[in-house]
């Protein structure tokens, strides 16, 4: 066995433990990517679909808090 294998394995486990993104990905269905990849050719929608990451004051939404505030606005509409 590679003498460095236990060290590499420990480093890998540590990186997974401290990285929430990695741990979340590990909980997804294994075929998630296959259902979230669009086909090469996509038709245009019948009506334009306005950018959702802009709030009611035309400010760009960059944080989850700002989106949740916009979400509340949308629900009221």
């Amino acid at each position, binding site marked *: 066995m590679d003498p460095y294998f236990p060290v590499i394995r420990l480093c890998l486990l540590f990186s997974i433990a401290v990285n929430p993104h990695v741990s*979340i990905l590990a909980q997804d269905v294994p075929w998630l990517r296959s259902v979230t990849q*669009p086909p090469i050719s*996509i*038709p245009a929608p019948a009506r334009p679909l306005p950018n959702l990451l802009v709030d009611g004051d035309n400010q760009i939404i*960059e944080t989850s808090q700002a*989106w949740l505030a916009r979400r509340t606005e949308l*629900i009221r509409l």
Partner: protein
Amino acid sequence: MPNRPTDKTVITLERELFEWGTRELIEYAIEPGLHVQAYVLSPHFINDTPRAGIVALHPTTNLTISAIAGVAGNTDQHTAVTIAKNGFVVICPRCFLWQNAKDFSDAVAQHHTRHPGVTGVAKMLYDAQCAVDILERLPNVDPKRIGAFGHSLGAKEVLYLMAFDDRIRAGVASEGGIAFESTNWDAPWYLGPLATNISWQRNHHELLALTIPRPLLLIGGETGPGAADGTKTWPYILASSTVYRVFDLPNRIGLINHGQGHPLPSKELLKGIEWLINYTSVIAP
């Protein structure tokens, strides 16, 4: 719509025992003076650990909840039974279009008499939320692990339920039709003239975005009579999934395009159940 009933009393009308579990026909208050019926399917419990619960919303069929709950119809219509066999407690409420109404027009007329100006979709959302109220109070249901499943009419209801009710952890919507023009959203029991009013500012990419970051699987049949979702659904998914950027999470609005038309094939049903099992699990984000 009014506030949902505070009286959550459930009357059990029938109970049947099967190898996989029990099926009960229940009735509960839904609006002042009105009750609705639903089937509740419960797998046998091997311990007291609460199970995940699913609101399974039936498609357009005069068999209504009898088909989805396995009382009548073909086995491929018995989707709630398949879901229950996979370990979920499932509630299947009857859509208001068939509850105490002669036909759809009568149901819509009654609804508009009680609630002038309220769309049929708003009534369907309200009814689905009442079903969640009942489901989350059932013994052995974990109220933090509620999902939603629906095909066709039921899928339309899932989209609105998941968008407007944060109790729904994950959803599967087969052939609901995201694009207004993809299906009969303009019917008086759905959105009516709003769906064809080009000056109306709302669109269904917003609806999809309201579900984020809770995982939603769409299933589409692409072509053939009644096919409502498929390649034409992608612009809405892509427009909505931009919201995932602010959560720093992978996109969890997915589409399975089976290309076999409007009916839900059994293979895709099982994929949908796998989705619900995964994303209503205790460890799911």
